C-alpha cells in the first residue's frame, strides 16, 4: 500500500513498547514539532542491563516504527551494547526505509543516546555520550 516495507508497517501498526516508565533510570527527548517528529524514550536498567524500554512518539510512520524497533533492540542489552546501536542497524532491522525517511532512524538513535546520557547523569557518572545538536539530527 505504501512506500514502507512490511516490517515497518508491522511496527507502525502494532508498535512495541509504547508508553512511559515512571521513575525511569534514563529518559530522553529529541526532535520538535516543527520538524514533524518528537521522540521520547525511557529505559529501566538493572545491573547494567536494560530491562525495559518504552517510547512515545509524535511523528510519521517511520518515526513510530523506528522507535518501536529501537526499543525492541535494546531490551535485554547491556548499556555498552545499547551505546553501540546505530541508526543503520535500526534501519536494517526494519528491512530498510525510504531515502527521505532515513532521518527518522537517526532520530531514534539520538533519542536512545539522550536516554543513555540521562542514565549516566542520574547515576552521577560522567557521560561518555556526545549529543549531537538538534540541527544535525534533522537535515531538513
Amino acid at each position: 500500500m505504501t512506500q514502507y516495507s512490511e516490517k515497518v508497517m508491522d511496527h507502525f501498526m502494532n508498535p512495541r513498547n509504547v508508553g512511559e516508565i515512571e521513575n525511569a533510570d534514563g529518559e530522553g527527548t529529541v526532535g520538535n514539532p516543527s520538524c514533524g517528529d518528537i521522540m521520547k524514550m525511557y529505559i529501566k536498567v538493572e545491573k547494567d542491563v536494560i530491562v525495559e524500554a518504552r517510547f512515545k512518539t509524535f511523528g510519521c510512520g517511520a518515526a513510530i516504527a523506528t522507535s518501536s524497533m529501537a526499543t525492541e533492540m535494546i531490551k535485554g542489552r547491556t548499556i555498552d551494547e545499547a551505546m553501540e546501536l546505530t541508526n543503520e542497524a535500526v534501519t536494517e532491522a526494519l528491512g530498510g526505509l525510504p531515502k527521505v525517511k532515513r532521518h527518522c532512524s537517526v532520530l531514534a538513535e539520538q533519542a536512545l543516546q539522550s536516554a543513555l546520557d540521562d542514565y549516566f547523569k542520574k547515576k552521577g557518572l560522567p557521560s561518555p555520550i556526545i549529543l549531537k545538536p538538534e540541527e544535525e539530527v534533522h537535515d531538513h
Partner: protein
Amino acid sequence: MINFDHAAATQPLPEVVDVMKPFLYEQFGNPSSMYVEGQAVKEAIEAARTNVAELIHSNPNEIYFTASGSEANNFALKGVAFANQKKGNHIIISAIEHFSVLQAAKSLTKLGFEVTHVPVDAQGFVNPDDVKKAITDQTILVSLMHANHEIGTIEPIAEIARVVKERDILFHTDAVQTAGTIPVDVDELQVDLLSMAAQNFYGPKGAGALYIRKGTRINPLIDGGIQENGRRAGTENVMGIVGMGKAAELAIQQLPERIQHVQNLRDQLIIGIEANIDEVFFHGSRENRLPNNANFGFRYIEGESILLFLGMDKIVASSGSACTSKALKASHVLLAIGASHEIANGTILFTLGIDNEEGHIKLLLEKLPVYVQRLREMSPLYEKK
C-alpha cells in the same frame, strides 16, 4: 480505493478517455501542416479551445494551452513581468499561493523585480485593503489565487480586482482549483489572466491553459514556433488538449450537480469529524469555501501516520505535514493562517470528487476517530483527560 485527494488529481472520465484514444495513434497529423489530416487535428484542437473558453466565459482566442497549471502560472508571472518591465518592476502575490506562483515570483526577484507578499487572515482571506496599500507606482501585476488548494478558501477576487483595475495594473488569478469545480467567469472576476489545469476537473494530466485577455501585454514563456498564435511554441500535446476540451464540456454541463454532490458529502464529513473527535481545528472559511474541501488539524499527532492508518482501509487523503511534503516542510499555507507547527504537521486535507459516495464518508467517520485516538496515545504531547 476511496479517493479523498481530488485536489491533487481527478481520474479522467470515460468520455474524456474516449475522445483522447483516437489521437494515440490513428489521428496522426501535424496541426500546422496544410494537409487534411493536419486540418482535422487542428479542428479538434480548436474545438477544445472553444470548450475551455466557455468554461470560464471567455473567447477561444484568449485561451493558450500549456502542459500544466504550473506552466500557466509561470507563463503569466514571467510573461507579464518581462513584457511590462518598462512600466515597472513590482509584483504583488499572497502568502498562500501555490509554489509555482511563489517560486516564479522568487525567480523574478533575482532578475530585478520586487515582490510583495500580502498576508491572509486566520481563514485565509486576502484583505483588499492590504492589496491597495501594497500597490506602488511600480506595480505591474497582482497575482492572487481564486481558491486555495489546501484550505479551500475562495478569495474575494472580484472585490480585489476593483482595487487593482482602478490603477491599470494587470491581474492574474490561479484558478487551478476552481475552473471546472465551481463557476468561473473572467468578466465577473475582472481578471486579465487565469490559470487552469485539466487534471483538476476529470481531464488528463499534462494539460493546462492560460487565459489571456485580449490586449494584454505578455511575452511567451516558451519562445519560437507558430503554435498557440505564436505565444507558446512546441508541437502540441494533441491528446491532452482534446481531453481537456472534453473535460471542460462535461464540467459545463454537470457543474451544478457535481457541486451539490460533493458539498453534501463534504458537509457530512465536517459534521461527523467535529462531532466525533475532540481537539480538531477546522481550517479555512466555512462559507466561502470550495464545495469539495475539508481541512482539519488533529492535535497532538502527525499527519502521515494518520494517512497510513487510513491507507489500510484504502482511504487516500493528503496532509499538511512536513513528512508528506517532498520539501519536508510543513504547509506554508497553514503557517500563513497562523497554525502552529504542531497543528500544521497534524493536518489532513480531504478533497472530494464525483466518484465519492456516502459509504465512503461513513467508513471514514467510523475509522478516523479510532486511529486518531491510537496515535494520540502514542504521542508524547498528549495527556489523556
